[in-house]
């Protein structure tokens, strides 16, 4: 009877040990598995990151369908005070563009990393594309980028001390300033002044010639009256100065030179 209980006790201890062993082993296995998994994850993450980088870099190519070419003419604009184009300026550009995108699409928070630049040339021209902040493999469409740039064009220009002509986004036409339209065209004003002067001159001349004619008529009337009275006095003989000889009066009126 004692042999049976010790056998049972031995069996139970053995099973317990087995269970413990298996538990430990399973725990170890799980630990190893999780370790492996985490490494894999890391690798995947790293791979993914590299992939996404590569994909993102792939997204930015010259003539990309959703990208734009930018051209800066710093020396033309600023001549003596032109600054060097370097990495910091490029960073400023990307930040400004991120700002422009945030202004346009208010729900999404664009970061500097969302603006991807490629193909820089000594001319200072490059291509850029904009990726969505939610998923870096998705590009923001051309129309949205164009709208964003259009809205904030002034701010982008002034960040670089340039103008629409010297900071060009190839494909995005600048909205030109509205022409100033005065109510009365200025030429009409000058015309009115000159016309007024000329009109006044003509009226003056015409009036003065009419007045002159009237005066002449009055004078000739007076002279005719004078002649008549002279003739009358001669006839009456009350003036004893002799006979007035008509043929010697008013010479200028009859003789023509």
């Amino acid at each position, binding site marked *: 009877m004692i042999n049976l209980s010790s056998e049972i006790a031995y069996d139970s201890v053995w099973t317990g040990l087995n269970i413990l062993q298996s538990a430990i082993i399973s725990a170890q296995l799980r630990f190893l598995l999780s370790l492996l998994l985490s490494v894999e994850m890391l690798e995947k993450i790293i791979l993914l990151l590299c992939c996404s980088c590569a994909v993102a870099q792939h997204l930015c190519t010259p003539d990309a369908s959703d990208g734009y070419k930018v*051209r800066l*003419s*710093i*020396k*033309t604009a600023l001549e003596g005070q032109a600054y060097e184009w370097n990495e910091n300026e490029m960073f400023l550009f990307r930040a400004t563009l991120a700002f422009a995108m945030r202004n346009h699409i208010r729900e999404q928070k664009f970061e500097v990393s969302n603006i991807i630049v490629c193909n820089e*040339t*000594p*001319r*200072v*021209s490059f291509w850029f594309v904009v990726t969505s902040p939610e998923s870096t493999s998705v590009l923001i469409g051309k129309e949205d980028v164009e709208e964003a740039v259009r809205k904030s064009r002034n701010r982008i220009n002034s960040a670089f001390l340039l103008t629409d002509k010297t900071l060009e986004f190839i494909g995005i*036409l600048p*909205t*030109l300033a*509205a*022409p100033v339209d005065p109510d009365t065209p*200025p*030429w*009409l004003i*000058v*015309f009115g002044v*000159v*016309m007024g002067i*000329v*009109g006044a*001159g*003509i009226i003056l*001349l*015409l009036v003065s*010639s009419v007045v002159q*004619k009237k005066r*002449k008529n009055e004078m*000739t009337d007076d002279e005719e009256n004078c002649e008549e009275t002279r003739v009358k006095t001669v006839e009456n003989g009350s003036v004893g100065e002799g006979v007035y000889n008509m043929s010697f009066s008013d010479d200028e*009126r009859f003789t*023509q*030179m």
Partner: protein
Amino acid sequence: MEKDARPSWDNPTQFVLACVSYAVGLGNVWRFPYLCQSHGGGGFLIPYLLMLVLEGVPLFYLELAIGQKMRSGSIRAWSNISPYLGGLGLASVVTSLYLCLYYNIINAWSFWYLFHSFQSVLPWSVCPINSNRTGPIEECEKASSTQYFFYRETLNISPTIEENGGIHMGQALCFVLAWLITYLFVVRGVKSTGKVVYFTATFPYVVLVIYLIRGITLHGAANGIKYMFTPKMEELANISTWINAATQIFFSLGLGFGSLVAFASYNQYNNNFERQAIIVSFINSGTSIFASIVTFAIYGFKATVNYENCLERTRVLLMNTFDLAEDSISMDNVFDWIEKLNATHPLQFAQIADKYDDCNLESELDTAVEGTGLAFIVYSEAIKNMPLSQLWSVLYFIMLLLLGMGSMLGNVTAIITPLRDFKMLSHMSNELFNGLVCLFCMLLGLGFTTPPGNYWFTMFNDYGATFSLLFIVLIEVITVSYIYGIRRFEKDIEDMIGHRPNWYWKTMWVVVSPVLLIALFIFYIINYTMGGTPTYQAWDKELGKSVVTEYPVFGQVFIGLLLVSSVSCVPLTALYVFCRKRKHGSRRKPELVSMVSA
């Protein structure tokens, strides 16, 4: 009992200034420089001065002598010389009428440009923006801003002469103003004209001197002056050089319109017009040469600016296409870079080959433009590039206005003076009659402010006066030399100025001038008949430049009418007088008999 004495100039200076103001006109500023340039630069002066001596001065002298002797307008003056030739005066009046109709339009354009100069940005210096504000208007971009302003905003020109449209209000207003000023200047006849010419004859010279100083100091002016004065002697062998020199002297002095006869008719009988004729002719030619120096200085400036702009455009194009650093190409080594890039990147270079235009200073200078094109397009283009462009623009257009108004005075006087010689019209007051003439011309001339107006203007300019003037002056000189008789003419001149004309004058009148004129006349007829259908330059909106178009049938008929209408006055009047004399002759004989018997 009014004074019937003929009104006269206050002093001989007024007469000289009136002649100068009339002769020195827009042709001196825009036609002579063009001729100079297209016929060999400095070499053109040789035929020009030769023609001045052979034909210009003698014919000028002749017209002044006739006017001063006959003391009446062209119709009565020529009737007095020979009763059958009253038609000559009538032809002059008709030609002057045509001239009056279209000449004031140029003054209207000058006013338009003058008024538009009072803006901070000259309207012809920038292209206006199109309706969706993405860029300049297409027509303006294809042409240039100055051409767009002239053809679209000033004229609103139609694509051909056949199309019609309403009157351009701004143009019409300026046109009315031009006529009002003309009326203001001639309202009292010679009394008012005599005072005005002090200003219109002298102020243009002030502006020309100012412009000369400005022009010579412009960047690139030396190119233009050098270009003009390098004589190309081979041009002298070309017959058209001589023809053009003769025609230019002719029209520049304003012979044949009757204005000189009219002006001289208000002279004192003993005025020494011989000296005055020589003075005025040489002043006129001198002004032409002086004005062409100014024009070519400005021309050189404009050509240089265009050339440098072309270089700049090419430089930017190369930099942008090949993405080179900004300061790698400068204006001087553009051409070297072109060669280099063509060699290293031939494919890419071929792609931009159509955008790249050839920059050539010679070809810029070679673009000869004459007439209204030179005055309003080329000059305004040059002015917009000058600093303080508003000031230069105002000065320039005031000068154009004075030159044009001065010539208008002569044109209107040429119509008024002969018509006032008729008894029924002489009773009307000066003011009323002059006003009616101006009103009539203005109403007819409004047609030139419509969209095809510029094409009609060109037609009148090319055909309205040229042929008939040649004919008129030819008949004039033959009449005086052969029909009236050179001996009688000599005696008349001796009567007026105290000595007979010497052998030079007589040879010119009797031999040289008639021969020259006949040659010119024949050449003109040959040119006209052999030239095929007459054409004109129509402005094409799509292409942004002028294209040569043929006149439609009604246009050609009208040209024929213009040519024939004034010339036919001479034979028709001669016929009319002949018929009247025959009628009178058959009536007079019985009267004589009755008187004798009584």
